């Protein structure tokens, strides 16, 4: 990531190098309400892109469009995974998005609470494991290469359990873990799908400062391994410290896009966050 260091101080709003995710003119309407309006931005490959904005700015809506939970009313979301032709995510059915290389976590944690941490991570590898079982039939009869595939899957799960510092909780049910560990397990689970882009919806929410620091380190490690990250976050400390680039939404419109330093000094962003001149902006 030697390229990232000069990037951080760069002033140009658009970075060199191919983006991993390209969002063009994305619009999402719910009946008469336009939650996201003609938003365009790109998330750089091998970078951490933060999506911030006040409550109700449309961050999670945009997120749900990218991860296939909403079908956008208009616009294009293109994933540029290295080595494969670009994929238009808005055309794929929900479960294909993960297979295309986009993994996500949820604002309110969605683990499988009655299953162990290890089982959670194995379910994340359902696709390759299922293929190894000959779609279920071969494995019942014991006629497949499933045992080898499962060993491989367990190795990968162990690697992420170690990375998220959860190894000794591997056999505990996910629902019995403390909050901070559940957050980390959800990230580990998303990483087990081997994504090109990891989307995190408020990963630091509810964490104490020490846990936030650990999270920041974990995200930087994930970036080092080559996975790009798109995150929604309210904890500005985390955002400013680890992001390569910050995209700001307000009332469903993109109001700023640049490095953390640029965004911090942006008058519109300050106005949106502090509510300055809200009346004047809303008046026309």
């Amino acid at each position, binding site marked *: 990531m030697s390229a990232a260091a000069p990037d951080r101080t760069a002033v140009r709003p658009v970075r060199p190098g191919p983006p991993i995710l390209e969002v063009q003119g994305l619009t999402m309407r719910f009946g008469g309400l336009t939650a996201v309006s003609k938003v365009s931005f790109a998330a750089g490959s091998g970078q951490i892109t933060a999506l911030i904005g006040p409550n109700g700015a449309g961050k999670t809506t945009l997120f749900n469009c990218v991860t296939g939970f909403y079908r956008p009313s208009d616009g294009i979301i293109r994933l540029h995974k290295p080595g494969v032709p670009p994929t238009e995510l808005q055309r794929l059915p929900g479960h294909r998005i993960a297979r295309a290389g986009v*993994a996500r976590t949820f604002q309110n944690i*969605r683990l*499988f609470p*009655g299953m*162990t941490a290890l*089982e959670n991570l*194995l*379910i994340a590898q359902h696709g390759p494991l299922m293929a190894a*079982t000959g779609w*279920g039939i071969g494995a019942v009869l014991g006629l497949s290469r499933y045992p080898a595939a499962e060993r491989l899957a367990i190795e990968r799960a162990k690697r992420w359990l170690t990375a998220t510092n959860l190894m000794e909780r591997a056999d505990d049910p996910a629902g019995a873990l403390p909050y901070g560990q559940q957050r980390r397990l959800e990230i580990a689970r998303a990483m087990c799908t081997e994504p090109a882009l990891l989307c995190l919806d408020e990963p630091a929410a509810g964490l104490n400062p020490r846990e936030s620091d650990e999270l920041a380190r974990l995200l930087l490690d994930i970036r080092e391994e080559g996975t790009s990250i798109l995150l929604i976050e309210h904890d500005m400390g985390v955002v400013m410290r680890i992001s390569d680039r910050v995209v700001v939404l307000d009332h469903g419109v993109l109001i700023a896009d640049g490095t953390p330093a640029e965004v911090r000094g942006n008058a519109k962003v300050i106005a949106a966050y502090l509510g300055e001149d809200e009346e004047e902006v809303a008046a026309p």
Partner: protein
Amino acid sequence: MSAAALAPPRPAGRVQLALKDALIATAVAAILFVPMVALRTDVGTAGALALRYRWTDAAILCGLVFLGRLLLVLWTGRRGLQPTTSAGPWTRRLQQAGRFAAPAFLIVALLLPVIPGVDRYELDLGILVLTYVMLGWGLNIVVGLAGLLDLGYVAFYAVGAYSYALLAQYFGLSFWVCLPLAGILAAFWGILLGFPVLRLRGDYLAIVTLAFGEIIRVVLLNWVSLTGGPNGISGIPRPSFFGLSFSMSGGEGTFAGFFGLEPSSVHRVIFLYYLILALALLTNWVTIRLRRQPLGRAWEALREDEIACRALGINVTTTKLSAFALGAMFGGFAGAFFATRQAFISPESFTFIESAIILAIVVLGGLGSQIGVAIAALVLIGGTELFRDLQEWRMLVFGGAMVLIMVLRPRGLVGTRTPSIALGKRRAIDGNLVGEGHG
């Protein structure tokens, strides 16, 4: 919470509390028993309805409630009996013994026909219980693992039974050819039902599956030219043992003749017993194997959180369909067996109450627990037979037992979940954490 539970109060206060509690319980019992037990209508001599009073019976029942409640409260304190889903002392013991309990059950089941004193009646009862064990295990895939509430499971049982009966009647196919066909046809209907109902969840799914079960029954009832309608289909051929029939003649080509045995009608019963035992064990084996594999884990994940499944790239539609189809297939096998055992089937055997009983077996046994379902089937089906001497009181015992289990163990006899894989030792997971599914 009363003070009685927090600290042991003075003995007088405790007795007083217990008395008060027992009196309230008796009052509730009286409200229930006076109209239901004390007043009874009989057909009188002139054919008119006559009211008969049974005050003694009602009084005895109220007295039993009073005594029972009094002793219970005195013994354990008011909050002594708490509902729990976690492993109680006896479940832990059962789980420890589980390593031996399941094989012990299996050995008893295998040796049942040769145990002295086991007669035709016991074997018939064994066949009946095993049929419900198999149906329970089949439905357990859909309800227990995938978390899809299916109230019309009996439809697949009916499809299996009628598949065999009709194929045998119109095409003269043998049981062994029809058994897989019945399973395949039932699975096909499972998929057919699955497609439209997949977008439904929870209560709505339950209603549609209930309707499906009724539709199948009503079609069977009214399509007289094909199914014989309410008259059913009789003379369904019996299965053969590798081509040897169980005819009583004892000649060449019969089971008794080939093995040089005295012709006896028990041979066929024993054969049918082992047949349903094998089918039930097949269901169990497939379920246990699948549970440790991606498909089974995906079913359980679906029960836990469907949205998370989608985010992880699991195709929710095909996963649900596979659960529906597999559950239906085992229902179909059981149906074909039912047809060949009875040699006569009619739509009357496939009413909603059958679905309800099978579901009750799965729920009482504990969603997703194989041994729990087997025990529940044994208790529910075997138990009702055992209490046959109690006549009209049988249902009261039966209902009371069900209420008791559900009050004390809301997640069934085995309310815990065993992980499908572990790095170290497998520890049972508390039922509170395990999802019940939302359809």
